[in-house]
């Protein structure tokens, strides 16, 4: 029987990436083979455990891009090199590499799984245009990495403090017309993902999005991340082709930790 046990991982680096966002570099006791789009469960002993997307690095040492949003992620921010955390994974299905021209749309910390995706796409000789959006100039995580990795990067901020004023979907609309991409990849707030899916559908471009739901067990048992139509985010996702999501709670119901719609 395959078993995914928590293993210790040493914090190698914990850097402030931008406002309220850190990048945690971990070295697990044993290598973990992962693909862009997959996630692991990150545990801090005595605190809690949360799903986090792989966000760069390799099997022996990888990065997580973490937004500080509550008690658990605040504890993540306090981690120092040499500290031990616990990781189990990898879980979930990765992004699929397809075609020769891709547009990658990142909303805030949604950039996390997209950094290694862009790297993978470029290695597969796919032309990548990336769009990164955030509320303002200090909330554009992994901007430098995306810039370095992508063929082209567009930046948007809601207040116009950097790049274009507005939303990454504004840029996407232009890009799908101009660039005629073979595929669109996106991760970010669900509202943004819904809009990305619409734009892609309107232009008949296949589109993969990485969806966030309460993932508790990570193993497809507890049901908390069920999305409808038989889909579980932890097993069947978190990356879905947008047509798979039709008729599910994607873009509709979001549930809190008790399972109640928010």
């Amino acid at each position, binding site marked *: 029987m*395959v*078993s995914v046990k*928590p293993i210790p991982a040493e914090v190698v680096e914990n850097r402030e990436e931008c406002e309220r966002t850190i990048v945690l570099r971990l070295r697990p006791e044993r290598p973990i083979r992962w693909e862009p789009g997959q996630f692991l469960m990150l545990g801090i002993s005595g605190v809690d455990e949360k799903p986090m997307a792989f966000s760069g690095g390799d099997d022996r040492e990888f990065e997580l891009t973490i937004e500080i949003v509550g008690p658990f992620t605040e504890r993540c921010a306090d981690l120092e090199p040499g500290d*031990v955390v616990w990781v189990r994974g990898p879980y979930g299905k990765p992004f699929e590499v397809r075609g020769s021209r891709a547009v990658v749309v990142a909303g805030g910390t949604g950039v996390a799984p997209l950094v290694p995706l862009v790297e993978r796409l470029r290695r597969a000789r796919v032309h990548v245009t990336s769009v990164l959006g955030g509320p303002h100039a200090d909330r554009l995580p992994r901007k430098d990495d995306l810039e370095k990795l992508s063929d082209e990067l567009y930046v948007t901020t809601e207040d116009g403090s950097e790049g274009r004023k507005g939303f990454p979907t504004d840029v996407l609309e232009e890009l799908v017309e101009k660039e005629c991409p073979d595929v669109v990849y996106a991760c970010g707030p669900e509202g943004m993902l819904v809009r990305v899916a619409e734009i892609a559908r309107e232009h008949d471009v296949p589109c993969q999005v990485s969806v966030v739901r309460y993932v508790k067990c990570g193993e497809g*048992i*507890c*049901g908390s991340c*069920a999305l409808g139509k038989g889909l*579980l985010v932890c097993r069947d996702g978190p990356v879905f082709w947008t047509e798979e999501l039709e008729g599910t709670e994607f873009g509709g119901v979001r549930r809190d930790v008790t399972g109640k719609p928010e």
Partner: protein
Amino acid sequence: MRPVEVLGKRWAHPIACASGALAAHRPGMENAVLRGAAAIFTKTVTESPREGHPGPVFVDYLDEGYALNAMGLPNPGPDRMVVEIEEFRDEFDVPVYASVAADGPEGFKRLARAFSGVADGLELNVSCPHAGKGYGAELGSDPEAVAEITEAAVRAFDGPVSVKLTPNVDRETLLEVAAAAIDAGAEALTAVNTLGPGLRIDLRTASPVLGAGVGGLSGPALKPIALRVVADLALEFGEEVEIIGVGGIRNGEDVVEFLFAGAKAVQVATAAREKDFGDIAMETSHILKELGYDGPEEAIGAALPEYRERLRRLGWCQ
């Protein structure tokens, strides 16, 4: 496979989704049904919504035969679960049973009322080994508490009630608890909830692996314990109640073992990780045929005569 009559309903086959697995809300129920579950037992609902324990809530030691979990009964509360069940019913014609837990008869009564006319039956969770003070197995190891709770629920609910038993008691207490549940009006017994609780310790941090500290043991290693409880219940009360087996079932052979031990139907939880309920049903059907049984009903209790014989030798049976 022939349908079976369980808890007042016709199930397409004897394999249901256990409480704790998948059926956290409508989309969870949908997942279980689309993967072939013949009936749904919801995640346990408490009087107020619960967030559950901090993580890790599930740790997979399946290469050692088991998993530990301490979800901590996360649930949206009865009002919302009623809506989830109703929405589910709009789409699917599959029996849904509500698993409920409270800290005494009053709470169980209120929950029973909430699900009257909504759920096809109730399963009383008096057996969760990690629910904490006043809940779960603490109640379920006390025959008097079980009697009061069962009576309260049976009176307040308009359908069949099953009591889910804890295996974490001695043989004598188990039979007393079961008798108390039956005398108080339970139409079925669900056997068993997870074992323990169990503890695993991180050596690096010298602290428990699970967020809650301890968790219930499930998976293949639970099966022999569950089978023994089912067989003991079937010998003693098989004429009076339906017995629903649960614990470590992964494939058709496991299902048949439970049928042979006296279970009328079974539930699957941990194995939902790797397998669809429908596949297990298919396997069960094949194996029953191979063994010469026309359907599941015929196989129920096939091992009990010989089991009784062995217990007699141990002095545990007349």
